[in-house]
């Protein structure tokens, strides 16, 4: 499993977080911490305020459609300690995905959560201004979902590459 050059091991972070907020940790791998959806705000606040982990900045926020659930991915970073923490939150409800907004912890989530809501349809409760960002109000569906514009049984995604079996492409 690849990991960014300054990325903390997910298990270490999970161990520390679990010591403080046992209910929050839902699991961990080498590269990430899984956090229970409902306690995401407390967990992020703890990660931000902890002196050792010091996740001062929400570097990136996005969501992944896993067909039956959503994963909201937070890339946090500490500027002073120069490390990165990857946090996943699993949103189980595929039809009405909802997650507490982390805007109270990170103001940088303002536009990123709007973007996720616009394109992926994850509703962030407690967001001060949750409107669609790129698309207009009333746009049907959420384009980044895998089932968007799905045509009878066809799964989106590339099944294979045309010349893959023929070997290297000749220039």
């Amino acid at each position, binding site marked *: 499993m690849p990991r*960014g*050059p300054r990325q903390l091991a997910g298990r270490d972070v999970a161990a520390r977080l679990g010591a403080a907020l046992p209910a929050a940790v839902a699991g961990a791998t080498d590269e990430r911490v899984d956090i229970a959806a409902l306690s995401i705000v407390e967990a992020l606040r703890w990660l931000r305020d902890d002196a050792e982990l010091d996740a001062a900045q929400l*570097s990136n926020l*996005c969501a992944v459609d896993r067909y039956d659930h959503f994963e909201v991915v937070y890339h946090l970073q500490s500027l002073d300690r120069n490390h990165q923490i990857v946090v996943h939150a699993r949103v189980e409800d595929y039809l009405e995905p909802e997650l507490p907004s982390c805007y109270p912890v990170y103001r*940088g989530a303002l*536009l990123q959560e709007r973007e996720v809501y616009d394109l992926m349809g994850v509703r962030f409760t407690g967001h001060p201004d949750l409107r669609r960002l790129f698309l207009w109000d009333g746009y049907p569906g959420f384009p980044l979902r895998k089932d968007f514009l799905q045509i009878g049984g066809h799964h989106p*995604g*590339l099944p294979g*590459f045309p010349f893959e079996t023929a070997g290297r492409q000749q220039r």
Partner: protein
Amino acid sequence: MTTASDPYVLNIGPQHPSTHGVFRLRVVMDGEHLQDVDMVVGYLHRSMEKLAEERTYAQNIPFTDRTDYLAAMSNNLGYCLAAELLAGVEVPERASYLRVIFAELQRIASHSMANGTFINDAGAWQTPLMYMFREREKILDLFEMTCGARLTTNYMRIGGVAFEPPPEFYPAVDALVAELPDRIGEYTELLVDNEILLARARDVGVLSPADAINASITGPVLRASGVPWDLRKAEPYCAYDRFDFGIPVGHHGDCYDRFLVRLEEMRQSVRIIRQALDGLPSGAHKTEIPLALRPEPGEAYARVEGPRGELGFYVVSDGGPAPFRFHIRAPSLINLSLLREMAVGSSLPDAIVTLGSLDIVVGEIDR
């Protein structure tokens, strides 16, 4: 007795000289003062993240050109790093150096554009912009020489760079690197101590370091607020740990500091290019990789210090030839998080200058 006038709504954009693209600010104004700011984006939305899920890893490189069309090289680089991290591809030494050279050239070109348009927003009649275009033009000539394109370069490849620069590239880049410090000195003389610019840009759009960090603001805007944060130092990708350069850090966090920081970064980029040219190793410029890359299932987040800030690419693989999920962390968009706080209460000209100093590229905001 008070004289009060009714607030009214002013649409700045989608077509407006200072929105640098198809970008709209919906502003509630009282006289010349802003009471509320709301940004309306999406006019340029092409849903690249969705399109990328239908194309192979290599086919996605040209898309990244078209997000931030003023810094195509940096975008190429960021995406290729993410794909390499995901697939575990090694990059030859020479390719890393070439990547550094082109990324830094791109940074100079992009900062020229940013500073030029910023002065334009402050009201100069195009002159500084034209000066800075002169240098940018030479850099674009170098790009054209190397990869045939000026704006949407599509130069980086997963595992290296597409082409070896032609022999005539080296004297041209040497000449450019030799004259750039003088040119930057010219801008400094013309603009840095200009009383009007000081009056317009100092203490306008101030951003405190704590706010900037908390609001995920990165790049020159963050550095102008006094935070010494640069991914080239913090997380040296390519060969940045081998070069000697500094990070300019501002003191007030106002528009003027952002301008100065960009100017100084151009100087530092020249230093890096010079060192990279001197130490350019020989060898292959690219690793051969399979035509259709099928990385192991997993995810990777790679980021580079783009001209506008942390340019991150989050790529998820499910083992297929196309990314399962492809997300671009667009610094232009995220740097706008605090626009409302910076602009409300100021006057219209100040808000325009603030917007100009954030250096947005609408192609990147909307993707």
